[in-house]
């Protein structure tokens, strides 16, 4: 009985020590997030244990938007950010509109940040397929998409065009 108690006490003390180390590593990341580059353990902590920080200045400073226009019977429509329009539309499911917008931003960012041409082409094709699934473009002869980034850069407000792509819908 005494041996069992000793084993449990050692086990318990080890867990207490593990918690103390856990807190210490997390504090290092919280105080100095850039130290996570030093070792894989700290990198793991940055990614899974000390989540965030959310809403960092670079992330809230600018946002990617996809402006889409369609050509029907030779006439081009006004470029519109349909993803944001759908979120504001009270007649559509807000949850679905938000998820679709998140996916659209994900694809647009994939095109913007792909280092390899093959990855860029793949993301661009998925963006085309995604637009083709939408009912509003069913009668379009051609679709034009312009990716813009709106926000603040060095404290100055502005809009940058990131890429433009036009394709035939049929």
């Amino acid at each position, binding site marked *: 009985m005494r041996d069992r108690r000793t084993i449990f006490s050692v086990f318990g003390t080890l867990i207490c020590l593990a918690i103390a180390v856990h807190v210490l590593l997390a504090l290092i990341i919280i105080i100095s997030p850039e130290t996570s580059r030093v070792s894989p353990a700290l990198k793991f902590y940055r990614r899974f244990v000390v989540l965030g920080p959310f809403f960092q200045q670079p992330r809230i400073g600018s946002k990617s938007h996809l402006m889409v226009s369609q050509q029907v019977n030779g006439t081009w429509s006004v470029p519109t950010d349909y993803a944001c329009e759908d979120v504001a539309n009270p007649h559509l499911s807000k949850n679905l509109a938000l*998820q679709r917008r998140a996916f659209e931003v994900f694809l647009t960012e994939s095109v913007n940040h792909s280092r390899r041409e093959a990855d860029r082409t793949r993301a661009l094709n998925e963006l085309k397929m995604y637009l083709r699934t939408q009912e509003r473009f069913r009668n379009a002869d051609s679709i034009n998409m312009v990716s813009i980034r709106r926000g603040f850069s060095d404290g100055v407000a502005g809009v940058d065009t990131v890429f433009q792509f036009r394709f035939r819908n049929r």
Partner: protein
Amino acid sequence: MNVQQKVGAVVEAALRRPLQPLSTLVFYRALTAAVLLRVLLAWRSQAMIAGVHEFRIPDGRISGPLLWPARFAAHHPHAFFLAVVVFLLVHLFLRCNYITAILFSLLAFNLLIFTIPSGDGGDVLTFMLSLWAIFLIPAKSKSGLRPQTLLYNAARIGCMLQFVFLYAASGADKIKSNVWTTGKAFDYMRYAGGMLNPDFPSFLATPLWDFAFSWSAILLETLFGVLIWFRSCQPTLIFMAIAFHLGIWWMMDLGDFSRIMIVAVLIFIRDDQYAGMFRPALLSA
């Protein structure tokens, strides 16, 4: 009593008595319900995404079997979601054990991978909480020294720390950010577009309110991790954290993230507080 004796006393207590079992049970059920809701709300959009997006899910010796459900979901989203809903309903109403808890965590990990194209930080938090929750299974026997009880208590502390670290990291970042301390963060988000709820009332979008919201977030996030361990501060902080996340939900349309954060806060409510909350209702029934 020296330090060694004090540690010994803490360890002995942690081996004998599971901390706040009612609170843990409510937290675990709420976590399962939140994942169920996440799945139901993501079903339609994820099925659409699976139709156009080519998922690149690792298929190595370890990742292969672990991520098999996510690969299956990429090709058969409806079958995957149906199976997940059935499992979660069973998990929600039946008594948990280690096997179902491990399956639940595995499911949360696969959902995290499968929903990357439309997900947010809430999915990572869900997975991490589900990972800790594997050990949140109370021992069947309530007497004697139990290593299972020790693991349960450590996991409960792990869940609490997960939340505290998240707040502390966000608070520390905001305090270092000029945009947040001046209250201009919301101005930035409004200009960038696509981040704030278009239905959020315009009378709450003034510099004064922006400043008040910014500093409410900074103060809550930085002080929570320090004050939550004091009994007298707990009810106020829990109430403020829930109100804060309901506010984020309304202002920024971040329903999934806010829901899981509110669920995570539940672990800080003590058993006696639950009893205090529900006793009047039970007595009047």
